[in-house]
């Protein structure tokens, strides 16, 4: 086989490998970015998919907050930002729920995302929030949970499964109904 033929095959191989790797990169990006896209539909269909892992720094210190650490408790997972108007109305309701239900094994876990840390701390102080809050400035956890805006809330049962979801501002009745559902889910 002549050198010319060999070099032509080599060039074609390199071109095919390059295109294949770019397609692979695109598929990987699409699958990892939209990993949570199916969660909302699954919960609306009555399924209880496992909550995606969540491990973020705490807003008020150097510790980390992990959802896995709350296994055995029901969790209200609320995604918010200080610049979000409905979040300001939800915050007092979440604080009340945390105080009222914590003895029954409920944890309210806030995730502040796409926000200035300083603004988030002011928000926590202004509304007197005492439940744990994680900070996710770049918002990396949002696509994993299929989120598209603020506020959005997931209710997680004691076995770490997603049992209810709210896009946008929830009502007091919706909050309580879903808390009961998360606490009683078997």
């Amino acid at each position, binding site marked *: 086989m002549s050198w010319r033929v060999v070099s032509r095959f080599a060039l074609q191989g390199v071109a095919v490998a390059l295109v294949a790797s770019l397609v692979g990169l695109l598929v990987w990006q699409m699958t990892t970015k939209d990993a949570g896209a199916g969660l909302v539909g699954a919960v609306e269909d009555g399924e209880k998919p496992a909550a995606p892992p969540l491990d973020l720094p705490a807003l008020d210190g150097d510790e980390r907050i992990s959802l896995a650490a709350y296994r055995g408790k029901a969790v209200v997972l609320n995604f918010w930002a200080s*610049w979000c108007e409905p979040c300001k109305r939800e915050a007092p309701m979440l604080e009340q729920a945390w105080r009222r239900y914590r003895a029954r094994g409920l944890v309210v876990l806030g995730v502040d995302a*796409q926000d200035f840390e300083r*603004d988030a701390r002011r928000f926590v102080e202004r509304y007197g929030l005492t439940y744990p809050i994680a900070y996710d*400035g*770049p*918002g990396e956890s949002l696509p994993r949970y299929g989120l598209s805006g603020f506020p959005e809330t997931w209710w997680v049962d004691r076995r770490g499964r997603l049992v209810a979801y709210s896009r946008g501002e929830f009502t007091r009745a919706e909050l309580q109904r879903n808390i009961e559902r998360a606490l009683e889910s078997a």
Partner: protein
Amino acid sequence: MIRTLAVLAGALVLAAPAAAQDCATLADLEDELICPTCNTTLELSRSPVAERMRDYIRERTATCATKQAIKAELVAQFGEEVLAAPPKSGFNWLAWVLPLAGLAVAGVVVTVLARRWLRERAAAAPVVHSARVDPELERRVDDELARFDA
């Protein structure tokens, strides 16, 4: 003494604009940053987070912060996705190099193909034999032209 003071004053006057150039402005940064919730540049977005970022930039430009410093602070809060163009470092170099490399490869491929095509075309062209004009015909043409000129 007066001359020394004049020289110092002149140096200060010249140095002031140079120092002022390091201070960023909102306009400098608005098209280089992305609003995290809407994925457009800051200058095109009126979302609440974009407004908050603009406020922050105004606060920092009021203290004469540099463009690099403000960008670094925003990256620390919102991640590298907040930058409209990836930084020229590490893996992000690929984003700058690959398009240029692609253009260069495409240029080489087009050149090679064009040269090959021209070569093949030249090889396939019919051979033109020497077009020597018949002397009798040449004489008649000259005569006709001379008659025409007269």
